[in-house]
Each structure stands twice: as structure tokens, then as C-alpha cells.
């Protein structure tokens, strides 16, 4: 359990908080610079901008969990039982952003199909997907 002396752990906490602060400042500067707010004309592609900021946030999360919350010094089983279930969220993020971008694509489809005239459907007639306007 105890891997650091009191003095060492005090120093380590100071070091970690300074690193966290520096990463935060970098994130903010990067966000402002990348969107062209600090200097006219400099802009990064959104994928690189987002990717770098996500990586920096994950590094911050790692430092908070492993250093501040002492996950580093816990039994490996505890660390696994806490961290492995959260990996399921990776799929959640992929699946729902994927789905979200599909909703975005469908927006135009819905709009154009809404502009088309609605075909007459006789009461009692059998629903035929081939002739009836498909909203999807």
C-alpha cells in the first residue's frame, strides 16, 4: 500500500496539480488558436483539433484517477473491476455518435420527401411500400 513517504507524496501531489494546470491551459489555448480566435488565418482541421483535445482530456483523467485517487496503489483486481466496465462506454460513444450522424444525414431526406406530394391512399386499400411515400 505505502509506496511513498509523506514528503514524497506531498511533492508528487504538487507536481501532478502543476501538470494538470499546464494541460488545461494548453487545451484552452489550442481550442482558441485552432478555431482562429487568437490569430486570424490559423485554423486546424476539426478532426485534429478534436483529437488532440480529447487525448489531453484523457491524460488529465488518467492523472486524476491514478495519482489523486490512488488507483496506482490499489490492488490490481480493484483497478480492473472499476476500469474494465467503463470500457463498455467506448462502444456507447461510437454507436451513438454514429447514429447521431445518421440522423443528420436523414434530415435532408426527410425534408425532400416532405416536399413531394402525398400519394392518395384509398381507404381500405392494402399498404404497399413500393407505391406509398416512405418517410424514412
Amino acid at each position, binding site marked *: *500500500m*505505502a*509506496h*511513498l*513517504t*509523506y514528503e514524497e*507524496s*506531498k511533492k508528487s*501531489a*504538487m507536481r501532478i*496539480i502543476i501538470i*494538470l*494546470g499546464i494541460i*488545461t*491551459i494548453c*487545451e*484552452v489555448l489550442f*481550442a*482558441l488558436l485552432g*478555431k482562429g*480566435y487568437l490569430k486570424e488565418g490559423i485554423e486546424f482541421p476539426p478532426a485534429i*483539433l*478534436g483529437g488532440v*483535445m*480529447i487525448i489531453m*482530456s484523457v491524460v*488529465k*483523467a488518467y492523472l*486524476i*484517477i491514478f495519482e*489523486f*485517487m*490512488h488507483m496506482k*496503489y*490499489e*490492488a490490481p*483486481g*480493484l483497478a480492473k*473491476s*472499476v476500469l474494465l*466496465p*467503463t470500457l463498455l*462506454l467506448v462502444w*456507447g*460513444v461510437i454507436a*451513438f*455518435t454514429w*447514429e*447521431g*450522424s445518421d*440522423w*443528420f444525414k436523414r*434530415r435532408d431526406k426527410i425534408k425532400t420527401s416532405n416536399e413531394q406530394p402525398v400519394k392518395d391512399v384509398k381507404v381500405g386499400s392494402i399498404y404497399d411500400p413500393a407505391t406509398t411515400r416512405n418517410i424514412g
Partner: protein
Amino acid sequence: MATVETAAHSDTHDMSGDSWSGGAQPFKASYGKLMMWYFLVSDAFTFAGFLISYGALRFSMPTWPVPDFVFSTTPFNGHGLPLVFVTVMTFILLASSFTMVRAVQEGHQENKRGVVKWMILTIIGGLMFLGCQAWEWNKLIGEEHMTIKQDPFGTHTEAGVYLAGDGHYVEEGDTFKAGESYLVHKHDGEWAPLDYKVTEGADAGIVKSQSLGPKAFGALFFFITGFHGFHVFSGVLIMLIVTINAATGLYSKRKNGYEMIEKVGLYWHFVDLVWVFVFLLFYLL
């Protein structure tokens, strides 16, 4: 981390086949600490549900309010200062996380005065964060009229020029480029969007009117930062109780290295951890 090995921990090293009698601690962690970890896992999933739905809705919208425009005011009439105030908020929360680490360390030293001192600083940090959030919300609701149903922050999709009420061009600051943001103001309780004439692209020459931004933005912002703020608020309450208990000497009698402070510390760091992602998704991206 404890330099003072606790009685409970030294017991666990010697489990001579006695695992079923209830004496052994799983993962060498006490019941309270282990359960705090598992509570945090479940809480992480709750926040993830919120943030993932934010991601899905944001991806489905043609435009999204630009954070550098939405969050560009500070107290004392600061304008056009993108992300400055929220960066200060982030630093307050980070600093309170650091003071919490120090409180836990003093707890391991069985130093009551140190624990109480650093805990009070952590509580002050939490209260400062809540105060900042209250100011931010007040600004958005009271002055900019953002609600959970309406989002006055829009973004132009094409370049153009603003028109005055009589159809003439507005002289000052009248042109804008695609991607620039605007805030629809309210006059006498009614939305007053400006008219503009498109100058480029397929719709050039057509007069259009500003529209409100994506509806989901307000609901997502208030529910997610509100849920986080509620965690900060409950954290402050729990820390107050724990600090009073520590000051009265309750935890020093337990001789377990102020484990209660450590458990509350886990919760507080988790609140900071969630803020890292709220900050990333709402303010940075």
C-alpha cells in the same frame, strides 16, 4: 498510500484459508472504500449517458452554438473574452482537488489540524465553483434568455449583410461571414431576430431572418452542468459534515488514518474528473 499501516490492512496479509469467515477484505480495501469506488462506477455511467446523448444530438444538428461565442463574458462587464471565465472555474475545481489530496495525506499522518485546514480550503473551493456556476447560469437565463426549450445562440451558414428595420443596409458592423455566431435578443418579451441579405452562394440576394439555435442545446447544457453542479453541492455538504466530525476528533479515535476523508476524497476527485469531460464537450470542442 498510508505510511501508517492500519490494523485492518495488516490483518488481510494473513488469510490462512479463512476467506469464508468474513475476516478477509476483498482487494485489500475496506468495505466503505470499495463501495465508494463502485458507486463512482455507476455514477460514471449516469454521466456517460448524459454526455453520449449530448454527442448524438450534437452530431445530428446542422449547426451548433459556438462555445467561444456563447461563453465569452466574465463578471465586471468582461466581453469578448472566450473561455476565460470557465477556465478560471476549472482551475478552482482543480485547486480544490489538490487541497483534498493534501487533506488525505495529513489524515494518513493522523494530523487532525492539517486535515481540518485542508478540508476547509477544499470546501471554500467547492463553494467558489458553485458561485461561479450560479453567475454563469444567471447570465445565460436572465440576460441572454436561454431556457431548456429555447436557445438564442445561432450560427450563420452563409455570408451576408444585416438590414435595418426599413430594409436599408446597417452602416456599422453590418457584414458577416459564414460560421459567425449571433445572439437573438428579446425586446419587450418578444424575440427580435435581425433580417439579413445573403451575399454569396446559391441563395445570394435573398433576405432571410435570424433563427434560434438548436433547441437541444439549452436542455443539455442545463441538465448536464446542473447535474454536475448538484454533485459539487452534495460534495460540499458531505465535506462539511466530515470536517466537523474530524474537528471533533471522531476520526482520530478510529485510528484508521482518517479513512472517511479518503472516501470523501474519492468522491470529490470524481466530481473533478467529470468536469474534465464536461469542460471538453461543452466549452472546448
